[in-house]
């Protein structure tokens, strides 16, 4: 796949595949095109050549709101909550395309993310970083997606919150949702990954299971800090 912003090509031949129900982790140095890859998959950037498929259907350059209906969700890295809206309204916006009664789902989310239940009437902008990340992920779960794309879900979080978010991601995956995430904390992320993809300069460098990548001495030396 080739993609980029306007005229500049950032992805120059990336290839990745994820089975239903797996966790995939995209790692690599800054500027390798990790976020660009996620945005291209979600139809936020123009894919110039190549194709993207979701469960066998072609979704190359399909609009985000169509992808949301098809069971894909995306959590951006920054500005990923509606700051002036309450926590509950954020979740309602996640369910914007649903016309059925989704109260049971709202209750399940509050049970899975207890801090959000307490702060449901509070504007999301007043929450701590970790809680905002929970709102962002919970918003994406409101459509009950098959695949959730996470762009650096632990960026800027304290180690304690990082653990919590990784635990939440495992929980989401246990419910049968496939996860594809970009992660700065590659070592930790790869321990929970079924598939790992290490990108450099817009291309795959290594593609293997998370365990194998962690054991690969070359990967460890160049990308995981020894």
């Amino acid at each position: 796949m080739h993609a980029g912003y306007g005229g500049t090509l950032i992805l120059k031949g990336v290839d990745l595949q994820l089975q239903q129900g797996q966790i995939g982790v995209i790692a690599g140095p800054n500027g390798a095109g990790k976020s660009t890859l996620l945005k291209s998959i979600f139809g936020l950037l123009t894919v110039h050549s190549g194709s993207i498929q979701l469960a066998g259907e072609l979704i190359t350059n399909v609009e985000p709101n169509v992808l949301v209906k098809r069971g894909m969700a995306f959590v951006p890295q920054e500005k990923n909550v509606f700051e002036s809206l309450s926590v509950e309204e954020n979740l309602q916006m996640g369910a914007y395309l649903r016309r059925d009664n989704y109260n049971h789902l709202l209750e399940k989310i509050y049970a899975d993310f207890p801090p959000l239940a307490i702060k449901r009437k509070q504007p999301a902008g007043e929450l701590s970083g970790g809680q905002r990340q929970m709102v962002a992920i919970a918003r994406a779960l409101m459509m009950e997606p098959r695949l959730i794309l996470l762009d650096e879900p632990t960026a800027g979080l304290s180690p304690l919150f990082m653990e919590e978010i990784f635990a939440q991601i495992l929980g989401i995956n246990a419910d049968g949702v496939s996860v594809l995430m970009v992660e700065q904390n590659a070592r930790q992320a790869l321990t929970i990954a079924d598939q790992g993809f290490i990108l450099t300069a817009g291309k795959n460098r290594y593609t293997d299971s998370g365990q194998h990548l962690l054991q690969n001495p070359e990967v460890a030396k160049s990308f995981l800090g020894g």
Partner: protein
Amino acid sequence: MNKLVFFANKVVISGFAIGSVYAMGAIGVTLVFAILRFAHFAHGDLMTVGAFFAYALTVLFPTAGASLGLPTGFVMLPLAMAMTALFAMALDRLFYRKLRANGVKPVVMVMASIGVALMLQGLVRLFAGTASRSFFIAEHKEIFRIALPIEGITRKLVITEPQILLVVFSVLVVTVLHFFLTRSRFGKAMRAMSDNADLARVSGINTQTVVMMTWVIAGALAAAAGVLLSLDVSLKPDMSFNLLLPIFAAAIVGGVGSPFGAIAGAYMVGFAETLAVFNWSVLLRPLAGWLPAWIEIPVKLAFVPTEYKLTVPFFILVVVLIWRPTGMFRGKVL
């Protein structure tokens, strides 16, 4: 005591009436800014156009209001609001949408809206000339003179039917808008898009529909403000520029992007105007006995003469931009 009634007539009632006009305009300006991120300078002209739609309907059916006991222009208001909403959507499709698709900077949108404003003013004059008109063709304007049941007060409270309709209608509109924005699915989507357009898109919100809804609300409210003001005073083809400045002042004072700030800002500007042009000598004269002899109360003592009323919102605008550029309710900075 009579002087206080005079004060109520000149300041309180007029302030509420003009504040309501500004509020309906400022809500539109602030919503367009919240969703589309540009200052819409053709907003005053949407008011003129809306008022002329209602006027045309009034000329066609001059007695339509008689059976309902309301001014015909007011009866035509819902139709004029719908027509202006469509008109605003058409403007967007013809001009603004094309610019958005090209990803132009906000300042280009502002310039385009000034172009649209001048064009609409030309169009209005082409069809309607430059003379003022009255909405009351087959009827007369009802003016209520209410005697107050207090001893010693002979002066009556004066309020016109259009003023009552204006205040009642704007309170109704503001209430409906409040529930729309805070309770309805679509209203929340509007707030979500104003907060974070990219995330709204990622959530599956159709941003194009939100943009259209914004023009519908802004156009309809502009028409309501234009018609109700014209009913109270007269329909002036050049009213748009005189309204634009106070409306922008109101939106900025309240905090651009905040509808409730816009309402508060509108009444503030409205009352500031009526207080500034009020002849304070009227209230001071009864106190002449207590004042030292060397103070002479002038015949006319107002902060600004009525002709220069427009300097008041301008003054407020500049003060707010210097001291609190985000407005009273912390809106987005223009």
